[in-house]
């Protein structure tokens, strides 16, 4: 068998899992998932085009309009310095989503590489998995606290915490998937015809693991956002006046009894984002990768 025909074998294996149109059609049939997906798209669009969508400047204070409850003029009311909360929530969503995405992408990349290498090189397996175990010994919040203690609070500390929170689990999932693929005949065949390790890892192994890793990351995204906003709430993330949902909730806490909406609206925004992400993740898992069910 030549390398080219082998490639088609590998490819069919891929398209079996990754046929996008089928996935979308099956997802659309699930009403809850469809609503969640639509909601996420809207939220993402609002976040991307925040400067256009936001009705006011999120940093513009107006001391004549302090702590106003929601009204026609300010849909979500104003905060303790008279800033428009709707605009701040839109900008805050932008920062919160960005944190989650960066954390999940970098963490997914590192974890995926570690897991696949562990499966491909049995010699490195023990060492990589031990490293993963040590990383698992640190809950994400603690990493965030530790980094903030050393380097000072800021978005960087949160990103590092989110990456460390993502890497070990992704590495385990990727290793599990890759070990399964290592046992397939086309891997052996590829080796037999002298395909280089690099091609084996990239074209044969990685491409076949990607959908599993992708589904897992979707499932984790909600949790990652929760961790990021908790760190923001603790004051380890974005610093004022930057709008970030967790930090906004923490600031509103001081005015909870006078104007509860200042703290509750950003918290509610986090809840909606995470809920939509979790519902979509669950549906995607059922469609794409039933093996991950547990």
């Amino acid at each position, binding site marked *: 068998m030549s390398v080219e025909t082998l490639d088609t074998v590998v490819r069919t294996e891929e398209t079996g899992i990754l046929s996008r149109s089928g996935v979308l059609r099956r997802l659309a049939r699930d009403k809850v998932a469809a609503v969640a997906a639509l909601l996420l798209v809207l939220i993402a669009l609002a976040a991307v085009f925040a400067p256009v969508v936001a009705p006011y400047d999120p940093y513009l204070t107006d001391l004549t309009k302090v702590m106003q409850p929601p009204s026609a003029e300010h849909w979500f009311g104003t905060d303790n310095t008279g800033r428009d909360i709707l605009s701040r929530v839109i900008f805050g969503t932008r920062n919160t989503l960005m944190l989650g995405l960066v954390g999940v992408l970098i963490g997914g990349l590192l974890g995926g590489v570690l897991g696949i290498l562990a499966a491909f090189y049995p010699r490195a397996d023990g060492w990589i998995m031990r490293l993963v175990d040590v990383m698992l010994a640190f809950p994400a919040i603690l990493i965030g606290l530790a980094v*903030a203690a050393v380097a000072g609070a800021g978005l960087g500390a949160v990103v590092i915490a989110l990456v460390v929170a993502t890497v070990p689990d992704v590495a385990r999932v990727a290793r599990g998937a890759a070990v399964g693929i290592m046992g397939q005949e086309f891997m052996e065949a590829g080796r037999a015809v002298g395909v280089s390790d690099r091609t084996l890892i990239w074209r044969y192994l990685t491409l076949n693991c990607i959908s599993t890793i992708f589904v897992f990351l979707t499932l984790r995204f909600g949790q990652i956002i929760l961790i990021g906003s908790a760190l923001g709430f603790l004051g380890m993330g974005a610093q004022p006046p930057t709008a970030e949902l967790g930090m906004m909730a923490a600031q509103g806490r001081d005015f909870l009894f006078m104007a509860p909406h200042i703290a509750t609206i950003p918290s509610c925004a986090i809840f909606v984002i995470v809920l939509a992400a979790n519902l979509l993740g669950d549906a995607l898992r059922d469609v794409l990768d039933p093996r991950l069910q547990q």
Partner: protein
Amino acid sequence: MGRQIVHRLLVSFPALLGVLFLCFCLLQVVPADPAMIIAGPDAKAETIAAIRNELGLDRPIPIQFIEYIGRLLRGDLGRSIISNKMVSEELALTIGPTVELMLGAMLLAVPCGLALGTLAAVRRGSIVDRLIMAVSVAGVSMPVFFIGLILIQYVGFKWGLLPFTGRTGPVWEGGLPSLILPALTLGLVLIGPIARLTRTAVLEVLGADFVRTARAKGLRETVVIIHHALRNALIPVVTLIGLQAAFLLGGAVVTETMFSWPGVGRLAVGAIVSSDFPTAQGAIMILAIAFLTINLLVDVLYVYLDPRVQRS
């Protein structure tokens, strides 16, 4: 069973060393040089060198690490920069409240989660099942502080039912009212995941042969559900509680900060905000060790619950 536990202890040893080393690094990368601080701003280079030598800061890093572990074993974690108290004393005061909070949350979440999950599985597909699952997905998506804010706002402030700042004392000395709201906040976020997994696990077990046999013997349905199904479903649930330990710990830090609960998490956050490195390092280390211990306990419990693990 003993061998399993010894093996598990040996496996968690490198993780413990990793935790200690990272905490040690935390003290190393502190932006200011301790010797310079002690010597003062216009000290001579020789004086600084002498202090460095006295503190052992000029020795190679591995030796310093071993010395650090030696100090830890003697219970010496240094002094707080802010209050000048021994860090070990501050930690000793805060560990109790944190353990109390976590236990309170678990006592609430585990039975509720198990009951709701089992109910959902038994009434599979009914409106009860769907309702329980919807609520648990919502619970999983809830930020801890959101629940806390709502409880403080309504139960604590508007209705004035329970205290919501600080801790009046240990539970056995009338501290229960001040524990309820924090424990409820932390516990509510755990019910969702536990209920979800219990449902899956019970459903799986309900389809097993031994459950059919138990029913065929004519056992009452409650006996079948509780003795046969739930007992076996507990195994994956216990593992899940182990996985939730990270969640529990992170949630505890947030809850303590919100309710001014005098625990390790609040100590850590306060120390970081005021750049009190020795205290922050000690508090983070204790939390990480607590996390390792929870996972170890879960593994031991796992072996106890599932005799199959012992044999393999």
